[in-house]
């Protein structure tokens, strides 16, 4: 008999006001198969996944499970059938223990005996090489450990289909290896795996088959090991979009930003304090900092933007100490920041693009003795939209009406047009479509070429290797040495991301002479 079809989706359609998230999608996953679902952000992967997991209902189409037609009545029903979901932004309760979290997802009768459940958790997690202490509170676990809880939860429910949504975006390269070992073992034991990702190399390493989505439709199906990454990328983005930016190297100039023994104790109980950070940036260079989320990136950004004040001398810009300067003053001195959250920090969601321009560009002559010159603000907003290719109905549209990529282009444009000396960008292409990502990369390179210093904080290693002249990693609030990208291997970077580096090497603190 041919390999059993575990899950089969046919002609799945799901519409939302204004867009067709899924447009006639076909997908088949066999027993024991690791199947990749590929597509860039906005292609419809999340929607499809929510349909498979029973969170939303499709408008049309059929689902067949192990040969039988199926209408899912919700996540609990999906779980009963053996469909297990590991979420990208975990669905765990931080103030409860591992065992309590898992108990909540089991039917009440199975969860009654707490001690038996705890024993099972220890047993299952060890069997798959992911040891867990069931009594620990989730808010004390690292991100990698939290992912293990999600996976163990599915395993205890005896899932025969495991869905993983972008699982490796929060792992170091070494942790990715451990995860892949576990997944291969599961697949060997007959469990099917649906692996959602946009990382082509990983998909080629791990998956048996792949289905590619673009704008809600299936644009290709293949065995990823037999196809080049460029071909898969073409299936994801079509033929018109450039796949990457060409970046010419450039020789950097004099030191612009000097961070010297920066210490920052965070008051947030879930935050990460910065310890003795040292780095310097020169004009005309892009420096990258890699790292898994939650290792101090946000605190570093806040220390540089002025949202958090530190000792005055720990940060100097062109010789001027700015550690105690508030954001407004830093902006006047030439510091621009693009935060990780574009809606709800970088831009006010309910306000128009015009108002959002005024948010940070108020030093550009738009405010006169307390009165706002509306025409100047509108003019500035129009110029951003034109120069940076922002697709929007009008400059009066709310920030929420723009797609992620367009809003990010707007924010980058707003900062770049203030001609900053230093731009700090945190995860600038996260959740952004490929076309906008390329445009954003080009904008960063342009800034560099105009003489600015750019600090790029990101989880996307491809992006970092492509754009940065020098790179390092941040882990648990400590910064690794920053070395030339050409001298850095991904294994070395992976080790640094896991914290395996000596304390600030003296050579980093030296002020490079042009």
């Amino acid at each position, binding site marked *: 008999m041919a390999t059993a079809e575990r899950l089969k989706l046919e002609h799945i359609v799901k519409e939302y*006001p204004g867009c067709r998230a899924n447009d006639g999608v076909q997908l088949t996953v066999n027993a024991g198969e690791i199947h990749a679902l590929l597509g860039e952000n906005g292609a419809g992967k999340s929607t499809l996944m929510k349909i498979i997991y029973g969170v939303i209902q*499709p408008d049309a189409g059929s689902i067949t499970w192990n040969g039988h037609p199926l209408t899912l009545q919700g996540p609990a029903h999906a779980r009963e059938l053996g469909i297990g979901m590991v979420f990208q932004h975990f669905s765990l309760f931080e103030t409860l223990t591992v065992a309590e979290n898992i108990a909540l997802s089991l039917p009440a009768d199975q969860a009654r005996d707490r001690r038996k459940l705890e024993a099972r958790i220890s047993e299952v997690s060890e069997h798959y090489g992911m040891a867990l202490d069931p009594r620990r509170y989730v808010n004390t676990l690292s991100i990698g450990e939290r992912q293990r809880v999600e996976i163990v939860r599915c395993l205890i429910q005896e899932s025969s289909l495991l869905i993983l949504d972008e699982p490796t975006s929060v792992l170091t390269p070494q942790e990715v290896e451990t995860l892949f070992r576990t997944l291969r073992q599961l697949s060997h034991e007959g469990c099917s795996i649906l692996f959602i990702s946009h990382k082509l190399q990983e998909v080629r390493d791990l998956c048996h088959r792949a289905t590619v989505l673009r704008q809600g439709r299936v644009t290709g199906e293949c065995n990823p090991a037999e196809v080049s990454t460029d071909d898969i990328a073409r299936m994801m983005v079509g033929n018109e979009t450039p796949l990457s930016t060409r970046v010419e190297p450039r020789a950097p100039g004099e030191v612009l930003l000097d961070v010297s023994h920066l210490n920052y104790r965070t008051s947030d109980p879930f935050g990460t304090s910065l310890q003795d950070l040292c780095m310097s940036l020169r004009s005309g260079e892009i420096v990258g900092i890699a790292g898994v989320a939650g290792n101090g990136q946000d605190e570093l950004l806040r220390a540089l933007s002025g949202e958090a004040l530190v000792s005055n001398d720990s940060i100097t810009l062109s010789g001027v100490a700015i550690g105690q300067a508030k954001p407004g003053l830093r902006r006047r001195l030439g510091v621009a920041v693009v935060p990780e959250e574009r809606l709800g920090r970088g831009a006010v969601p309910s306000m128009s693009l015009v108002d959002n321009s005024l*948010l940070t560009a*108020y030093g550009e002559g738009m405010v006169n003795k307390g009165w706002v010159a509306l025409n100047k603000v509108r003019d500035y907003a129009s110029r951003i939209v034109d120069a940076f290719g922002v697709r929007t109905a009008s400059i009066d549209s709310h920030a929420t009406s723009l797609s992620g990529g367009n809003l990010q282009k707007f924010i980058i444009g707003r900062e770049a047009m203030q001609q900053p000396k230093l731009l700090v960008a945190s995860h600038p292409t996260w959740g952004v479509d490929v076309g906008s990502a390329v445009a954003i990369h080009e904008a960063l390179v342009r800034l560099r070429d105009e003489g600015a210093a750019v600090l790029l904080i990101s989880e996307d290693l491809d992006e970092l290797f492509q754009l940065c002249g020098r790179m390092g990693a941040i882990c648990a609030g400590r910064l690794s040495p920053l070395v030339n990208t050409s001298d850095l291997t991904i294994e070395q970077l992976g080790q640094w991301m896991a914290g395996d580096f000596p304390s600030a090497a003296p050579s980093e603190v030296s002020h490079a002479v042009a």
Partner: protein
Amino acid sequence: MLSLERRAVDSRAMQWASPLLALVLTIITGMGIFMALGKDPVEGLTFFFLTPLSDTHGWAELGLKMAPLLLCAAGLTICYRAKLWNIGAEGHFLMGALWASVVALQLGGQSGPWVLPLVLIAGIVAGAVWALLAGLLKTQFHCNEILTTIMLNYIALNLLLYAVHGPLKDPYGFGFPQSEMFAAAALLPKLIPDTRLHIGLLFGLLAAVAVGVLFARTFIGFQLKVLGQDERAAAFAGFPAKRLTLLAFILAGGLAGLAGASEVTGPLGQLVPQVSPGYGYTAIIVVFLGRMQAVGIVLAAALLALTFMGGEMLQIAMALPKAITGLFQGLLLFYLLTCDAFIHYRIRIRRAPKAVAGEA
């Protein structure tokens, strides 16, 4: 089956229709209440809405009651647009009334054009300080402003009662808790002679205009808006959250304090325990009904001033309890919030989800 569906874009039409719809629903409910009480609904509505406005005297009274509502609402609008939930207008009002009275009585024998401004300034400062207290509790100690301002309201009321039963009591007042009458120099000039309408109404209208301009054209207004809509963005932009918060409280307190001072130097001419029939709380409804916009709050203040007069009219003409005013106002706010939901949602009649066709 009926279900609520989120709209892709908020409905502009509903934003303006909602207050009107809420009013209509309130009126319909009101008619139902009249009938349940065995009274003629049409007669009841006429006495409530129309009779009070049947002569110039009535319109003057409307303006009279609008003034404190408008002043308080203008101040609260500044706070609410910054999402500072200041429930303390009643307390600021009472403190304004109290200290204006103190100064007016101190200056008893004096006359001259400087007396009244001094009295009013005392009221403004008192209200501003009272609000500043709540503001500081928030900025320095992170105390929730809803709870602190309400507590301060009760404290202010008790201070006023203490004053009127004690230090400020009129020795010739037959033991009633009230102060002496103020000298003529400390009284607000009238807007329309032979009525009780005083220039307090002008203060109110000016305040509404000023608030409108503040938010439309000034950078401080912009900063307050951002603070209210997204405080992380405000921090990111470097807007001084603490200073803006304190400013909003001071302005709200000063305006409500002026309202209190106007009330004692205007229609009352003295300090009495019942100086406010709940203006500070009704002003909250004015702000929501008026969509936190200058024009809106003027119209809403007029409507709610009318409800006070209507309640009094119903008490006289139909022997209904005066509490009908509070009931009406509460209903209005309730319906408003319900109708506001339809700015974001619409009703959909949806058949059960299509059965997913199986395939052999």
